Each structure stands twice: as C-alpha cells, then as structure tokens.
C-alpha cells in the first residue's frame, strides 16, 4: 500500500505529510504531525472533541481523510493562541472554570471560535445549538456557555 503525499496549510503554515489512504485527518494531526491538541473521543463524529476547521468550515477531523486535506487550509486548536497571548475564548474558559478534565475543551474552543466568526453576537440559544455537537461530561455546559457569551461580548467591545 503506497502512501499519499499531501500538501496542505495548517494554522497558516505550509505543511506536507505522507499518509495512508484510509487514515483520518485526526490521526494525521496527532500521530504524524505531533499536534495532539485535537482529541479523539468517539471517532464517529458524535462528540466534537476532534473539531477543526477546513477552509473555514467547522468539521470533525475524525470524519475527514488525511488525503482530503490536499490543497486546503486547516485550522486547529494549536493555532488559536498568539504565542503567549491567549485567545479571549481561552481566557474566558479559565476565568469561568469552563473545563474540568479538559478533553472536550480544544474542540469546544475551536467550535466556539467558529461560531463567533460566523455570528459575533449569538444568543444563548444559538450558542447552545451551535455547540450541540461538542459533548462535555464534566461541566454540565453552563460554564462553557457563559464563557463563550462573555468572550463574544469582549470581542465585540474590542472590535
């Protein structure tokens, strides 16, 4: 079985990798590129822990083949902070204690960033629906929703 050569852009950086035809983008990120921020929860698109964006579109990286990443732009949790400068969502998650075990957090941050880019002023209901594909078994969600709403407010005031 010959590997596939893929040329892509991840968090703005031109990246090349070789992968098997049936290897998922999530496995490529984690096992080949050492980007372990994206987590595998279910591996079947139910939990959202592996959320990334592909050409700006929020997807589960466990349901994308690595080969499909050729020529596209991928954004992962690793590209969210600007060096030491945390993204407002990351800061608000800390302030609101919006995480406990943390496994779901990278996926929720990526999904929430995508929400605020699409809709900078979401209602709580819109936020809950947007994040319905990100499962968290620790927090009960309220703190997550509050953190996202607060981050959105801060980002609106700053812009």
């Amino acid at each position, binding site marked *: *079985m010959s590997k*596939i050569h893929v040329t892509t852009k991840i968090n703005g950086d031109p990246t090349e990798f070789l992968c*098997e*035809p*049936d290897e*998922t983008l999530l496995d490529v990120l984690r096992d080949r590129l050492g980007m372990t921020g994206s987590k595998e929860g279910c*591996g*079947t*698109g139910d939990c*959202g822990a592996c*959320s990334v964006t*592909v050409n700006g*579109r*929020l*997807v*589960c990286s*466990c*349901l*994308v*083949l690595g*080969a*499909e990443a*050729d020529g596209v732009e991928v954004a992962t949790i690793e590209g969210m902070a600007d060096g030491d400068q945390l993204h407002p969502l990351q800061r608000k998650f800390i302030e609101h204690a919006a995480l406990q075990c943390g496994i779901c957090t990278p996926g929720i941050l990526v*999904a929430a960033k*995508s*929400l605020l880019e699409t809709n900078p002023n979401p209602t709580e209901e819109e936020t809950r*629906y*947007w*994040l*319905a*594909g*990100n499962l968290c078994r620790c927090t009960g969600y309220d703190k997550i929703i509050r953190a996202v709403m607060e981050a959105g407010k801060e980002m609106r005031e700053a812009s």
Partner: protein
Amino acid sequence: MRYLAPATLEDATQMLGSDLGECRILAGGTDLLVRMRSGFAEPDSILDIKRIDGMRDITREDGGWRIGAAVSCAEMGEHAGLSADWPGVVEAAGLIGSTQIQGRCTVAGNLCNASPAADSVPALVAARAMARIAGPDGTRDVAVEHVPTGPGQTSLGKGEFVASIFLPARPENAGDAYLRFIPRTEMDIAVVGCGVSLTLDGDGTCTDAHVALGAVGPTVIIVEAGAKALVGTQVDDAALDALAAACSAAATPIADKRGTVEFRTHVSGVLAKRAAKIAASRAGA
C-alpha cells in the same frame, strides 16, 4: 485501499469503470467514514467526488436549483435563493447532525445512505426532486424516491453515483415544509418525519400537493390520499384532519426503542397536519 480524487466527471466514470474492487463514493463522509471505522464497510477504493467540477455548486437551472452532490447541508442553509424557494428542503437538510456534521454532510449522501429515517429525503420527495445519476453509460435523471430501495440499499448500478439533485422551479403561491419528531431538541434520528409541498391558487384553494413520510417504512412513503385530501380545499381543519387520517393509515412503522407502532402511526398524522399548515402559510394562505 486506494484513494481517488478525479477532477472531471469523465475521469470519475472512467475510474469507476475500471477494476477498483469494492469502491465507495466519498462526498461528506459522515456516513462512510463511520461505517469504515465500525467495520461495516471495508472498501478496496474510495472515490472522492468533491474535486469534480461543479460538484460543490448550487446553480440556477430552468427556474429551479441544481445542487451538486458534494454541497454540504450548511452551504445549502447559507444559500439565500435556495432557502427562499425550498425552505422545507433546506430545513430538513439542516436537521442532520451537529454543526460539524452540517459542514460535511450532503443531501445526495443522505439519499444514497438509504436510511429509512433520513431527514432530507421526505422533504426532497415532497418537493419532487430529481437525482442526476452519472455512470458508465452517461447520465440519467430519476425521481429521488427511486434511489433508495430499502434500508441501506439503492437502485444505483455498478459504477453509478448521484452527481446532483435538482429541485424544480417553485410555482407561484407554493410552499414546502418538513417536520420530524425526536425525543430530544437536536442531534437525533427521526422517529417520524414528514415533508409537505403544496400550491395554492389566488383564492387560497390548494391546487397541488405532495406528501411524504419518513421513518415509518423501509423507504419514504408517498401519501397520495393525503395529497388528495388537500387538493380543492382551503387547507382548512377538515382537510387537515383528512390529511392526518390518510397519513396515519399509510404509515407502516416498526416498533423499536425510539417509538412504538401506535405512537409512530399517530405522530405521522400529527406531523403531516402541522407541516401542511406551515407549507400553506409559506404559500401565502
């Protein structure tokens, strides 16, 4: 396993005509990759249709809309013209999975996955959508209800795949709607689904109707008696009650953990009634 990503329809059909072993078509992958992971699908090759010219486009055609097989449901929802003409189809497509799934899943894939509970299919059937099927002998157009033939089974021949879905021109004073019952508020599989598309004349009399039920039979059920109950009426309470009775009579559900036969039979009528009301209000009643 081989991964193929042709750039033209000709290349795709030529590849499909060659010896690829068991080949699966990849559009959004939200069913295929799950099946592969769970061991229900072990293809020798995967043919990704997303790079084929036109597969990701929504285009005007004869007053209607042609939706490429790789257009995601999220893209459908963001398309103002399509959403204005076929809100029922778009809202049905928008019910599939989470935001993440929406970014990948397609109505063509939903059709070909051939789940009895597929959300977009009753809405597409009600809208009298056509599937354009590409294959070794060129392309052919069939009504969408002829694609799934049973749970997980389709009428597609060897080397064939759905290249696009066509929604016809929406007549004046026409509207469509889709409703489903799920025990949660989102991200669930339809216990019953119902799509209704209808046309009114200037006086608000229904001149045409098409009613389709999902999840209460092995494939979508077209309820002609339900459509007849609406045509010639003002879509009033008596007509809606007759529609509900016809839909409950047409439903042939199974009982499973998500709903009993009795429940699904009853809900078929309730949803049809509610969907018809929405469709009629969209038609300008």
